[in-house]
């Protein structure tokens, strides 16, 4: 049969059209009769396309970073560090105390010999960062550093900015598409407003955002790795825990609720040396993996940044045969014996579920929040562009498109049908492609779609105008169509490749809205090469093959 090629082309087109149409309008389950009604189709369409915050709305969360706790922790750490620094230098400092309430933050050191005060101040200055705290106040046997209001505000502001960045990296890593994050309230209120488009499991996202994942690699104090109770461990230290030690439980937590209770009691207690060898800020990467391939047996492997790895490698090299504790959120996850020098790789053991291991890896990677986060307000909001304006926008666009179609049919007659088929198919397939890659459609994405459709119209116009030109020169109809497509194809390829190149660059260098634009545009253009050239040409070829002796081409 002489039309074999044509039939194959047609089959390809029909297959792709059906697949695309189903992806856009069909349900993701076995279709029922209801799916073929107007309401069913509309329902499927809105379920298939993920619309962004600006078009559909989503969750509105106001959270507050506990900046007071941040400053409190900072004060206590500084007090501890100051005491250690002074005592290490054999200076006569007997005790430290802190004030951390009602907007007053201060650190005091008590001296047994007041004449040494200046020496203590100088020594502490070398080891502890009191640069924001102003000059210490020395009176009798006490040295006091107070944090001025101005500095408090600056530090709170920094803490919120840091939290904002960490939250952003967490929700992005989780795959929430195009959220908006902004500061709310005054600089010192510590409030953050997060709006995100509908996610399947908002509770999980909330937990993830607020998760405190603090990893420490610590040395187990000599011979102190096996106490039955906390009391026994403390007793071994002489009744009180010195600042250079921590007493923590070893908890082999099994997260699979169906096999064992969620929280097993700690199996034993350990005394660990503080400060840790390296902590979570030195993490370079963390990822969840299953050791046995079972869904319920996940662990987290991590690697350290070069500086941390250097420290860790040095330490493990010197301490072969000793115990190392891997501590997560103040629980020892495992305490292996060091068998050889380790530089930058490690594992957090335990039997985590896939979800919790992944969330944990993600929060570890994003870094620790500077302070706890409270949720203050939660609501579901409508589209930020406003439901009314979206309706108006959709109506206006549909109207505009209808005008375009009418003009194509009027101006290009029979061939106009060609263009309209190509155009409609282009839109369906672009949306289908967006669904396949699970992209979230926002207004910038629609702008990309508009440009894509504009260039699709342009491709058709280029081809038709070219065919007309050839016809005017007196060339035969089949030859004109042939030349028209061939010549216009060169132009179309050049315009499309240029735009695809620049969109790829936008995609690589942009985020959020810029990416949304680039993605829809790239998809639209790739599909247009198929619809405007391949599909449209196939229709012309059918026309030629059905009416071989046609005297007049409707164009």
């Amino acid at each position, binding site marked *: 049969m002489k039309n074999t090629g044509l039939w194959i082309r047609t089959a390809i087109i029909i297959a792709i059209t059906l697949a695309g149409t189903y992806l856009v309008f069909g349900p993701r389950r076995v279709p029922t009769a209801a799916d073929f009604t107007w309401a069913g189709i509309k329902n499927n369409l809105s379920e298939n396309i993920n619309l962004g915050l*600006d078009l559909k*709305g989503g969750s509105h969360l106001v959270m507050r970073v506990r900046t007071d706790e941040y400053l409190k922790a900072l004060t206590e750490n500084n007090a501890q560090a100051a005491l250690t620094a002074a005592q290490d230098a054999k200076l006569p400092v007997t005790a430290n105390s802190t004030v951390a309430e009602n907007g007053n933050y201060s650190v005091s050191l008590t001296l047994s010999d007041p004449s040494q005060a200046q020496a203590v101040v100088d020594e502490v200055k070398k080891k502890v960062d009191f640069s924001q705290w102003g000059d210490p106040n020395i009176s009798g046997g006490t040295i006091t550093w107070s944090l001025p209001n101005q500095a408090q505000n600056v530090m709170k502001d920094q803490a919120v900015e840091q939290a904002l960045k960490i939250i952003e990296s967490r929700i992005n890593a989780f795959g929430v598409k195009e959220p908006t994050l902004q500061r709310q309230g005054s600089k010192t209120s510590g409030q953050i407003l997060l709006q995100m488009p509908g996610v399947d499991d908002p509770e999980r996202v909330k937990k993830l955002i607020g998760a405190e994942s603090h990893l420490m690699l610590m040395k187990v104090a000599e011979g102190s790795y096996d106490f039955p109770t906390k009391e026994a461990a403390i007793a071994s230290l002489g009744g009180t825990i010195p600042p250079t030690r921590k007493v923590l439980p070893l908890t082999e937590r099994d997260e699979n609720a169906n096999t064992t209770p969620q929280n097993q009691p700690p199996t034993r207690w350990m005394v660990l040396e503080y400060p840790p060898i390296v902590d979570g800020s030195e993490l370079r990467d963390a990822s969840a993996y299953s050791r046995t391939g079972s869904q319920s047996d996940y662990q987290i492997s991590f690697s350290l940044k070069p500086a941390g790895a250097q420290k860790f490698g040095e330490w493990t090299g010197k301490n072969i045969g000793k115990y190392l504790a891997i501590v997560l959120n103040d629980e020892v996850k495992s305490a292996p014996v060091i068998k050889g020098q380790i530089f930058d790789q490690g594992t957090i053991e335990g039997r985590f579920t896939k979800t919790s291991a992944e969330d944990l890896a993600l929060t570890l990677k994003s870094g620790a929040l500077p302070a706890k986060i409270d949720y203050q307000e939660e609501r579901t909001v409508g589209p930020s*562009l406003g439901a009314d304006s979206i309706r108006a926008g959709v*109506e*206006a666009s549909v109207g505009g498109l209808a005008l375009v179609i009418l003009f194509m049919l009027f101006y290009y007659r029979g061939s106009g049908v060609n263009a309209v088929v190509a155009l409609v198919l282009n839109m369906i397939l672009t949306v289908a492609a967006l669904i396949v890659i699970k992209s979230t459609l926002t*207004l910038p994405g629609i702008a990309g779609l508009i440009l894509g459709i504009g260039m699709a119209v342009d491709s058709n116009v280029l081809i038709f105008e070219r065919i007309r030109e050839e016809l005017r020169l007196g060339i035969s109809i089949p030859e004109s169509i042939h030349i028209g497509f061939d010549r216009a194809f*060169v132009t179309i390829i*050049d315009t499309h490749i240029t735009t695809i190149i620049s969109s790829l660059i936008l995609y690589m260098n942009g985020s959020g809205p810029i990416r949304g634009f680039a993605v829809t545009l790239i998809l639209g253009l790739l599909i247009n090469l198929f619809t405007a050239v391949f599909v449209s040409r196939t229709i012309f070829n059918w026309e030629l093959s059905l009416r071989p002796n046609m005297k007049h081409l409707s164009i």
Partner: protein
Amino acid sequence: MFNLFQNIHIDWLGKRRIFIGISITIMLAGLVSAIGRQAMPGGTDAFNEGVDFKGGTVVTAKFRQRPADDDLRAALNNAGIGDPVIQASLDKTDEVLIKIPLLETESESQTQTEQQHQEQVQQGRGLVKKALDTFGKEAEGDNTLDNAPDTAYKIVGTDSVGAIAGSQLRNQAVTATLLGCVGILLFIAFRYDWTYAAGAVLAVFHDVLMVLSFFSIFQWEVNLTVIAAVLTIVGFSVNDSIVIFDRVRENLPNNRTDTLFKITNDSINQTLSRTVITAGLVLLSVLSLVLFGGEVLRSFSLALLVGLTLGCYSTVAIASPIAIWWQGKLGAAKAKEVASTVGGATKMASASRRSVTRRPVTR
């Protein structure tokens, strides 16, 4: 068959000085507007930035009978709030979030004190209250909608919000677009010629700067959607330039005796029907968006309307003349070089084969 624009012989390039003059005038006006507004004490900023970029005040209002978004927007506009963002609360259907941009007199800065901050919030609240009072009285103070039956609404929350799209996103958009232009430059240079690449990219800059000029002069609101519009304009502008360049490239080998000047003019005229139809159709859709697409999308649709029109204009007025002008420089150099050696004709032919266009330009 209908045929628009057949056998047109307009001397487009001959009018290049007029075109470039118009463009420069508008851009200068934009520059003057931007600098003037920025420099004027107490005046407005260079651009009328929306909540997205500037932050502002968010007011949560609870209604007895929630008005339609359109009515709310109209009331807010009447109270002098140009570009509010109105977001419905879907789980509490009687509540609505109203975001208004930072008021002009104050500016968000590191040194802003708590007191100034409160004043700003209160000022915003006052404006929104003025607008909402057109729907009925507010249940003020401790009153609620339940115990004060003659009231219509209550402002249940007021707070300031920061920018969604801070300077970071803006800088990112600018950087990404500039890098995109480098990509365009390289590809056109590879497929056509450096001179054409320069013309097309300068035309892109021209279009974007012109759109920004319009936004500054008329103080249209700049929000996130405008970034999307500008990206679209860049794409369309390049598309249009390439269509004409492609025709020039095609015509060159067929018209060896013609000057580049004439060939370019011919190419513009030959593709004129396509230019007019495509541009007309695209503008038709965008115009329908401007007219019927509603208040919120106005910035977006206006940017597209102006930008896409300019995209076609700049191909003729900017891209082609620049390509030709540079070709002229190169062509003159080439001619001199060729004349000083022997066998000028063959050299010319090979030169024009190697690069699409190396030939003398007259006029």
